[in-house]
C-alpha cells in the first residue's frame, strides 16, 4: 500500500533515489539566520577568500540536515531516524551542485531497522561527506 520501504520488502544493496542540492547566497543567508550563526565565511565572499576559501562556504550542519532529509524522504513519515553520523572531508561552496548517494548496507529484522551507507559528492565526483544512518522503517 505505502510507497515507502518496509522491513519486509527492503534488501541489502537497495539504492536511495539520488538527492541533488545546491544553495544560493540567499539560501545560505537564510540558514545563517535560522541557526543564529554569524560566521562571516557563510555570507561575505571577500572575507571567505581572505581566510583561504575559494568562495562563500556552505555550512557543515546545513549539509547534516540535508543528510537527515535524504534518509527521511526515502523512509517516509512512519519511519524513525535512529542515528546518523558524518565526516566533513572538504568544503562545499555557494552555488555548487551537490549529490547524495545512499545504499542499504545491512538489515536488522529484530529491530525493524536498516543501516545506510551515504556519500555526499560534488559534480566532479570528489567526496565531501561520507556518512551513515540507521533508520527504523514504518509498518507494511
Amino acid at each position: 500500500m505505502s510507497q515507502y520501504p518496509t522491513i519486509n520488502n527492503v534488501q541489502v544493496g537497495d539504492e536511495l533515489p539520488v538527492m541533488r542540492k545546491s544553495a544560493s547566497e540567499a539560501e545560505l543567508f537564510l540558514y545563517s539566520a535560522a541557526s543564529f550563526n554569524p560566521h562571516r565565511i557563510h555570507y561575505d565572499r571577500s572575507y571567505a577568500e581572505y581566510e583561504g576559501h575559494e568562495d562563500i562556504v556552505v555550512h557543515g550542519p546545513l549539509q547534516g540536515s540535508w543528510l537527515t532529509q535524504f534518509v527521511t524522504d526515502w523512509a517516509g513519515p512512519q519511519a524513525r531516524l535512529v542515528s546518523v553520523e558524518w565526516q566533513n572531508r572538504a568544503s562545499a561552496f555557494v552555488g555548487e551542485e551537490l549529490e547524495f548517494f545512499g545504499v542499504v548496507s545491512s538489515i536488522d529484522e529484530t529491530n525493524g531497522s536498516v543501516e545506510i551507507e551515504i556519500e555526499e559528492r560534488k559534480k566532479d565526483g570528489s567526496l565531501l561527506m561520507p556518512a551513515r544512518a540507521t533508520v527504523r522503517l514504518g509498518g507494511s
Partner: protein
Amino acid sequence: MSTSLIPPESLARVGEILSEPVTVLIDQREAQRYAYAVGDLNPIYFDEGSAQAAGYHSITVPPLFITHALVRPKPADELRLDGLYEDTAAVSLEVSRMMFGGEEWDFLGPVHVGDEITGTTRLADLDQKEGKKGPFVRLVRETTFTNQDEQIVARSRQVGIAR
C-alpha cells in the same frame, strides 16, 4: 612521537561540563523557519494531522534543529572579526586552527513543538593523533538533550579537529 599539543590541565577536563545546561521551549515558528532554510518541507513539521498520522503527538521538528534551538543569543558588539562570538567554552590547546570534523547523533525519543529541551555539553574526548599533514588534536563535545519529562531525546557528538 611529537610533543604534546594538549596541555595537562586541558586533558584533566575530559568528562567535565563545558557550559551550564540551557533549557529552551521548542518554538513552532523557529523550527519551521529552520525547515524552510534547509529545504525540508516534510508535512510532519508543518501539519498537526500529518504528524499525528505518522505517530507523533503533535508537530515535530527537523532532527538537528534542537542544537540550533539551544543557541544563546548574545549582543552583536561581542562578535569577533570572523563573525563568531568568543568561545567561552574553549579548551586550551597548543594549536588554534579548529575545523569541523563531523558529527554523530543518536535519536532516542521524539521532540514536539512545545517541549522544553535541556542541553548539557561535556568534553567527551580529547586526544592527539598523527595525520599525513602532521599531528592534530581530536576534540569531541557531547551534548545530551533531555525533555521536560527527563527523558533523553537525543545525544550528539561534535568532532573538532585542531592543528
